[in-house]
């Protein structure tokens, strides 16, 4: 039954198929296993000492935010990169690709469909990485608490470092949130990424409970 259900949602490009190798032999390819790694990620070592403090300081003063507007909160991101609020002066910059970002602003509600992409983007970010939950929706469902398509509690699916209250939070509130995040990082507490990896099974179980077509590897490096 479980298998059947899984197959139902498998995208065509992820189906097990036979391909011709360059030498002419036919081999079977299971994209989900062969093209992606299924290895469990390992938590990184959290060190202590002045060097680590210095690195934490650098991490805090150079926040690269992933440009992924997951919800309506993303409307307040442009004011932050434009003259009025200008977050560049605080060392906060936008990046277009998850590989180069270390802060993920979940801007408001996450539909199930976006959650899947958000998980993927989050897992692709290099550690240590941070999540800022924006607005009521990430805390307890907010406006859409009774919608069948939006999650209620972000912390069940991704580890969240800081929450900002508001709907919409003003740009200043966002800057406050980043300031708060900086404090957390400088205090050496910004290691939620490890928490995610240590509790991966719990997170994955939660994620899989609502993402019905789990046609992606368990962990996206």
């Amino acid at each position, binding site marked *: 039954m479980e298998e059947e259900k899984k197959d139902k949602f498998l995208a065509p490009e992820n189906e097990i198929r036979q391909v011709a190798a360059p030498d002419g032999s036919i081999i079977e390819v299971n994209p989900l296993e062969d093209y992606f790694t299924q290895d469990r*990620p*390992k938590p*990184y070592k959290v060190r202590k000492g002045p060097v680590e403090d*210095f*690195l934490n300081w*650098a*991490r805090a*003063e*150079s926040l*690269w935010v992933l440009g992924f507007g997951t919800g309506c909160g993303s409307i307040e991101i442009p004011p932050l990169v*434009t*003259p009025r609020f*200008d977050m*560049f*002066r605080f*060392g906060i*910059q936008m*990046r*277009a*690709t998850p*590989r*180069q970002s*270390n802060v993920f602003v979940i801007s408001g509600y996450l539909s199930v469909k976006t959650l899947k992409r958000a998980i993927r983007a989050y897992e692709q970010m*290099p*550690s*240590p990485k941070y999540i800022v939950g924006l607005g009521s929706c990430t805390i307890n469902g907010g406006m859409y608490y009774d919608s069948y398509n939006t999650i209620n509690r972000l912390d069940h699916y991704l580890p969240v470092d800081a929450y900002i209250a508001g709907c919409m939070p003003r740009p200043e509130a966002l800057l406050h949130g980043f300031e708060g995040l900086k404090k957390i990082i400088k205090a050496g507490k910004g290691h939620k990424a490890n928490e995610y990896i240590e509790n991966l099974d719990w997170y994955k179980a939660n994620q899989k409970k609502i993402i019905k077509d789990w046609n992606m590897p368990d962990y996206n*490096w």
Partner: protein
Amino acid sequence: MDYSIEKFLWSLLGLFIVLNWGFLMASTMRRVGARLAGRIGVPMYQPWIDLVKMISLKTYLSHGVMYYIGPVFRLVGGIGMFLFMPILVGSEIWSNYSFSGDLILLLYFQSFGMLGMAMGASDSGSPHAAIGISRGLSQFAAVEVPMTLAVIAIAIQHQTFSFESIMQAQQGGILNWTIFTNPLASIAGMLAMLGAMSHSPFNLVKAPNEIPIGPPTEYHSSFLSVLRTNSAIIHVVEAALFMNLFFGGADTWFMYIIKTFFVYFISVFVGTVFPRFKIEDSVRWFLKWPTLIGIIAVLVAAYW
């Protein structure tokens, strides 16, 4: 050529200065752009923090050997350009490893990093990187044409392929600069520089609007820090290249900094107020006006 340790250390010091100047220039230019928009912009020291942060990030990603080597190639390209070009004119200490045919080598090194990047990026498996690389290579090929023509014109003018000689020939007054002695070649070269600097309107390679970041899409943490280091070096070195060719080189570090800043600023000056070209437009553009001017410059240099 002198292969002593002392020489090597001097070059290393030069590299260090150039690297930091590159970072400083990058943040300065960003602040200038920000001011134009009405913003304050990044702090001056932001690139260094970014660098430390990028190194501090953990990596557990593998895309294959070429993926690792790509940034190294790129850096080698940048450092190579630096090493084989004299820094200050007439200075033994700051002459680096320049030799009589270094101009040719430099043109080669310009493409070296690009090719390394191409291999690394295509190994990263991201289609955006592949698109970016194909754009980069085609634009580079187009830029090379006016660039080479300008270099040839200058080489003919000065009858040498040595930087040192070209720079020496421009000493002794502002009017001796190539830009005044050979304006056509200079124009062709400067237009090519706009392409080489990867600034708008010729920055489709990295166009974050359609292909996020382009070739380095998949690069992160220390890989990206290598790329960042390289781009800091290469911006200064590229600027120095054009400074040496057209603006008489520099005889002191102060002049070096001033002149590279201005040469680099030209590309920023243009880039800030123009949107970017599509790749076919930019290729067409380079093969049209700059190339035409370059050919004329070569003809003028050869037959006048």
